[in-house]
């Protein structure tokens, strides 16, 4: 009896992870194993880098009450356009350009955040306006042309691979060793945290569950790094993604600022009466979104090796979709960074798998749309007793 309850709880908590695993298996079988070829595993990360970064920022907007940012795709394009103008047309220093691009992102975030947080214009409207404004400005800056190629220094930061120090033929040992180190560190941290809790007399989770979780995570990390090692090693964009995920996971779960986002989404009035500046929370959400959109803009520009006026189209939809598939509540207040990453991965796997299978582009959109709807239906319905609202 007790085991049964725990099983269903585990199922509920890790639904999307299980779905992700099933989808990967399905595609692997259907593509005759092509899905898991080293190059495809690499592409999964490199092609979707922008989704991971944007979805992380989008989560914080959604947390404040289901608010979305429609402008991120256009901001990605605009930041790229500014970078292209500086680095390609004017041949300016790439590092200076990067700083300017980040500042542009922050400025855009502050602009939109101000209207949303302090004047209380609905985010949907402000960011819809932003979507038009920055798409238009991108075209103005680029004068409707594509600027290429990007300077090498810039590409080295965002588009290359971490060099191998071992020089083995066909296998990037550095990459695999990084995976091993990550696993060891992870296991060490979990065990240490658990021990210190037990020492202080706090409750600890049952060891069996922790062990299974550790084994699954380590196995996934090692398999993943092994595949990357068989290709070109660790792509630089993966480093940026991991950095963003790590920093924002920490902010969301371990800092007071992170807690404010959840509180505002849960009950804004109560949060305000608890002495928390709720306006600032909204402002921070959109300021941060602008910043991460700039980061995504650099990654995207580097990957395309050009700044062009159509870059970033529909990126906002991918980011929003990843958040909701990943379990963020459409009403705000719930959702986690790891959940959103799972959501983004699921979208990426669907894209990749269907492309390998040669599914028609339009049918791919149909499938992705239905998956998004299904995920949110599942999220909403699983929280109440009956399927149809009475």
């Amino acid at each position, binding site marked *: 009896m007790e085991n049964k309850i725990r099983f269903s709880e585990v199922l509920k908590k890790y639904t999307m992870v299980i779905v992700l695993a099933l989808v990967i298996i399905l595609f692997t079988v259907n593509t005759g194993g092509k899905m898991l070829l080293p190059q495809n595993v690499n592409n999964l990360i490199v092609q979707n880098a922008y989704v991971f970064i944007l979805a992380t920022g989008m989560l914080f907007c959604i947390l404040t009450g289901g608010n979305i940012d429609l402008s991120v795709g256009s901001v990605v394009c605009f930041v790229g356009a500014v970078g292209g103008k500086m680095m390609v047309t004017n041949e300016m220093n790439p590092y200076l350009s990067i700083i300017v691009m980040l500042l542009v992102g922050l400025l855009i975030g502050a602009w939109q955040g101000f209207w949303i947080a302090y004047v209380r214009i609905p985010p949907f409207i402000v960011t819809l306006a932003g979507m038009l404004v920055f798409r238009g400005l991108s075209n103005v800056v680029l004068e409707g042309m594509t600027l290429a190629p990007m300077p090498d220094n810039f590409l080295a930061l965002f588009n290359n691979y971490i060099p191998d120090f071992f020089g083995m033929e066909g296998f990037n040992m550095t990459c695999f060793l990084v995976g091993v180190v990550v696993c060891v560190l992870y296991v060490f941290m979990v065990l240490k945290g658990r021990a210190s*809790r037990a020492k*202080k007399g*706090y*409750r600890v989770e049952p060891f069996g569950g922790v062990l299974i979780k550790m084994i699954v995570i380590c196995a996934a990390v090692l398999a993943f790094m092994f595949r990357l090692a068989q290709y070109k090693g660790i792509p630089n964009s993966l480093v940026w993604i991991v950095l963003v995920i790590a920093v924002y996971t920490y902010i969301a*779960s*371990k*800092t*007071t*600022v992170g*807690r404010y986002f*959840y*509180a505002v989404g*849960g*009950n804004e*009035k*109560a*949060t*305000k*009466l*608890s*002495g*928390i*500046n709720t306006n600032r929370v909204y402002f921070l959400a959109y300021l941060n979104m602008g910043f991460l959109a700039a980061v995504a803009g650099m990654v995207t520009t580097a990957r395309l090796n050009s700044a062009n006026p159509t870059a970033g189209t529909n990126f906002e939809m991918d980011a929003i979709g990843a958040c909701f598939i990943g379990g963020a*509540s459409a009403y705000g*207040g*719930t959702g986690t960074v790891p959940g959103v990453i799972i959501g983004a991965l699921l979208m990426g796997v669907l894209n990749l798998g269907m492309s390998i299978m040669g599914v028609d582009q339009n049918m791919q959109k149909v499938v992705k749309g239905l998956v998004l709807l299904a995920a949110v239906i599942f999220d909403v319905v699983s929280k109440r*007793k009956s399927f149809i609202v009475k």
Partner: protein
Amino acid sequence: MAKILLEMKNITKTFPGVKALDNVNLKVEEGEIHALVGENGAGKSTLMNVLSGIYPYGSYEGDIIYNGEICRFTNIKDSEAKGIVIIHQELALIPYMTIGENMYLGNEKGPAFSINWNETYGEADEYLKTVGLEESSRTLIKDIGVGKQQLVEIAKALAKHAKLLILDEPTASLNEDDSKALLELLLKFKKEGMTSIIISHKLNEISYVADKITVIRDGSTIETLDKKTDDISENRIIQGMVGRELTDRFPKRPHVKIGDVSMEVKNWTVHHPLYSERKVVDNASFKVHKGEVVGISGLMGAGRTELAMSIFGKSYGTGISGQVFIDGKEVKMNTVTDAIKHKVAYVTEDRKGNGLILSSPIKINTTLANLKNVSKRGVLDNDKEYAVADEYREKLKTKCPTVEQNVGNLSGGNQQKVLLAKWMFTEPDILILDEPTRGIDVGAKYEIYCIINDLVAAGKSVIMISSELPEVLGMSDRIYIMNEGKIVGEVSGQEATQENIMSRILKSSKGE
């Protein structure tokens, strides 16, 4: 013997894991006012939901016999067709529709594609007259007060040709005047032959209007008291509800030495946030000592909550003027953060709307106002947070499996305890408790009173705003009486009586 209009026989209703109703029996005679009382969660509302078809036939066991026939309602329409109309505690009116539109919502006059508005408003006006509401049925709901909205609900029920009217906590959000008017209306209907079932926590009202009282405890009927033959005093009803004789509804406070003045407010004036020429609080001055419970009594709309919230970091109103002294020094509290820093806490009357994050666990709610204490340089110590929340759970005897439980799943009394814990954790010296026992059952009330006693015993000052006179009288060392934004009187706890407080309020309303 009068005809039995409704009989509910051996009703049993189970939810997953809980037996909400266990062989409940209820007999209602035609033309009587039948009261249903019980602690929160006793099963009163569940029983009425079974009766009105919200829980359809088949989802419960037992029989509903109405007007001599067994009824099998599958939805509210079925029961309404028979003349059983339920008015819920939370009013179900749409603010931006007119009174008339609301009254006939789902029941529109004329053909579906061409509603007859003249007939609608004409009839609506008739019913409004019956309930004694002097408003045109073309007025928008948002423009009338809660008391009037309750009357609209009743008029709506009449428009459905109600024969059996069920009122769930009809006076919970009404002030004394409106409550009184509502009760008189029920008595008037009774004379005209209407049968009513009333659910209420306000026992004095029940003793006043009810012919029979059925007591429900833990999902079973305990007893039915008849006005003609039984004692239906408040104490007698409480005894049935809690299953023990509650000789003292207010715990004795061990003698607490009342110390120096801890907070003094002078000439406090607050204007309405939208209509800035209107004074909501008018030149109010009061003080509270260490170790003292000060009650603020008054009718709803007297400006008590507004007074408290405007002091608490200017959370309400505009054009605020006046001075606040804490421990003899003047302080400025412009934000909630300032107020918390000056060790003032305000426990809201609206725990769901303004107090708690229902979708978050107990521990997150407990620490929200004082995250500083469970974090270092902005980084949370999750283990410490858990320990803190657990400590308060034990201290306040909050009933919950763990502090990871979402607050939304707790009963009203336990939610109130979490809210108190949240503010006690900010380590305040002065606590303003706004309606601390609203909508919670007698047992939980007693526990909240004990907590208040512990607080003053520790030398804190408590300002208690309450609309329940017995509570103010039972708990306060000193009572301020507020009316229409002004403090119109001050009495000590010993000399205060319901009569002299009410008479002060009424006198000041007349301008004496």
